[in-house]
């Protein structure tokens, strides 16, 4: 998967643990300031951008993956009505 949070290790010099504490999930681990932060559970990123926003040295960039930036999903498939393989809607689609 695309890494959602990219940390520029050269810029990450503050020696803080702000990214770890500000992340609303349990994604970024920086237990002590002498470690570099590690994006431990990238698949659980909310794409909120709080880590990037709060980083005092602007060392963090949020990278959106292709399925978010150029999403091609036929959202009719998310509505709970089966969509035929050819993408057309069934004739008996109820009038709503």
């Amino acid at each position, binding site marked *: 998967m695309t890494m959602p949070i990219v940390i520029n290790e050269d810029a990450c010099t503050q020696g803080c643990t702000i990214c*770890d*504490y*500000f*992340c*609303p*999930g*349990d994604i970024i*681990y920086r237990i002590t300031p002498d470690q570099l932060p*590690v994006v*431990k*559970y990238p*698949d*659980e*990123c*909310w*794409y*909120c*951008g*709080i880590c*990037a*926003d709060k980083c005092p040295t602007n060392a963090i*960039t*949020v*990278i*959106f*993956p292709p*399925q*978010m*930036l*150029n*999403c091609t*999903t036929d*959202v*009719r498939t*998310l*509505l*709970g*009505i*089966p969509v035929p393989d050819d993408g057309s*809607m069934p004739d008996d*689609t*109820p*009038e*709503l």
Partner: protein
Amino acid sequence: MSKFTDPLQPSDSPVHMIEADVLVIGGGVAGCLAVVGAAKSGARVVVCDKGGRIERSGSVGGGVDHFFAILHNGQEWDTPDFLLNYIPSLTEGVTDLDVAEKLVRGLPEMVHMLEKMGVDFHDPEAPDAPYYRHRVFGLPGEYTINFDGSNFKHIIGRAARQAGARILERTMVKDVLMEEGRPRGAVAFNIRTGEVYLILARAVILATGDVNRLSRNASGIPFDSWHLPYNTGDGQAMALRAGARLANMEFTESTLSPKGYSSQGMNAFVGGGAYVINSLGERFMFRYHPNGERARRTDLTHGVATEILEGRGPIYFDCRHLPPGDIDRLVNTLGVDRPAMPTFFKQKHIDLTREPFEISFTELSVRRGGVYFRGSGIHIDPEGTSSIPGIFAAGDCSSMSAGIAGASVMGYLAGQSAGRYAVAQPPPTHLDKEQTAHIVKDVIRPLAMKGGLSFHAFEDEVRSIVTDYIGYRREERRMKEAIQRLKALHNRESDLEAGDHHGLMRVYEARNIRMMAETLATTALERRESRGGAAHVRVDFPQTDDQTGLRMFMVEMVEDELQVTSRPTGLSSSPPEPISRPSTLTES
């Protein structure tokens, strides 16, 4: 990442015993104000939160840009009585008016209390001007204050800390412990270290937020959700297992968001005057609601879903007509609710001032069914008490929700009620060695499971079932199939493998999400009508039927089975007679 593989074995999980009067589960807006309320009554308070520092944890830890308020500013709509008159029609006759009244009447005082704590509701651009307020989501006035709430959670989190509460960070509560039908406390664990906490408390406040990660969305990324994906219905599931009743669980909620990115921030667009247009360039929302883009959130979602189904998608947000000042405000405040939103538009190469951008509806979540002054969750009375004395609830996990304003008022109220209750009760009996060993062994069991079921696969299966068999367009046959499949998944829960302590959290979250899905399907099956915009659309009962539908559906566990009951709400769903016709009620 293998270097993080935790070498701890179950026998290494240290156990801590803590005694308190009130245990608050969840340290978001409702939880923090519950702490403040409970501490005022002299109770010893412990608060557990899955997130990190309480000053930043929860749905609005990064910031928030709006607060629903009543301020008595001299306009007729700006009073509790005026607003209360609209609540039955706003909720289509399904809410508890006595609980809503507590919320609404508590709003003016809550604004003062938060200001005393240090929240500044003024526009930072014009600090001496009156609050900048706007109208959203079908409400009969400009109630919502737009403000820079970047530090909102920091301020109330600090207030909770200063109230003297013991704060357990990165701590997930697995279950409330019961004793003769009353709460005795709870069992919890640290999601990084695996330390187990047995917390004895006479009163428990559930403030765990809404239910997310429940259905598939456009990006297919489960944690790409409109609301906080780490809110997984933990409190609602705990309440059910403890024997409490949930209400309104058939109503689901989603919102409009840039296609591929489920995000907050859309109130700013619709409140700021953006148009919603279809592929023909039509502002179609007036077909669905006389208020157009300013209809309730659930009506907006319903309109967009229907346009797409009828072949007039894709759907766009269009800001091009807005005056430059309004666009500037929109662009400047876009990142307050969701800091990465400007980055998203930048990486997508969209300039929203010059071109419309495609939107869609987000995944389903269980919160309040798209309207304020009703909640989908633990049923509470006007004091915040659940159907079990000693168990209280507030915020989005309860049956009375209205954003962070609602969470603030009802959280504080539940805290006061729980504090009063707790100090009047005898302390819970201590756990003996055997009970302790049994509880701890049960909590850490998924850590010992090797080669078991992955929580990823389990959760994905729940989302598939909810998306394909419940969804936005519901019918009896498919929902029965959903229930059957969800029950089959339930039978496999004991095979779930945690891997590490973080994974232990994921196992319990997955179980809670499944339970919420079954609760949703079971309740939605019983409401044989359509009601609430997109919140509950039955293709087999497409009409709103006030004969059968002006009822509140409740669900509880009876001998391991979900049992649904209902009672009439006694409310009407028709709009109130206008008290007068103030100019502010005219749509611009």
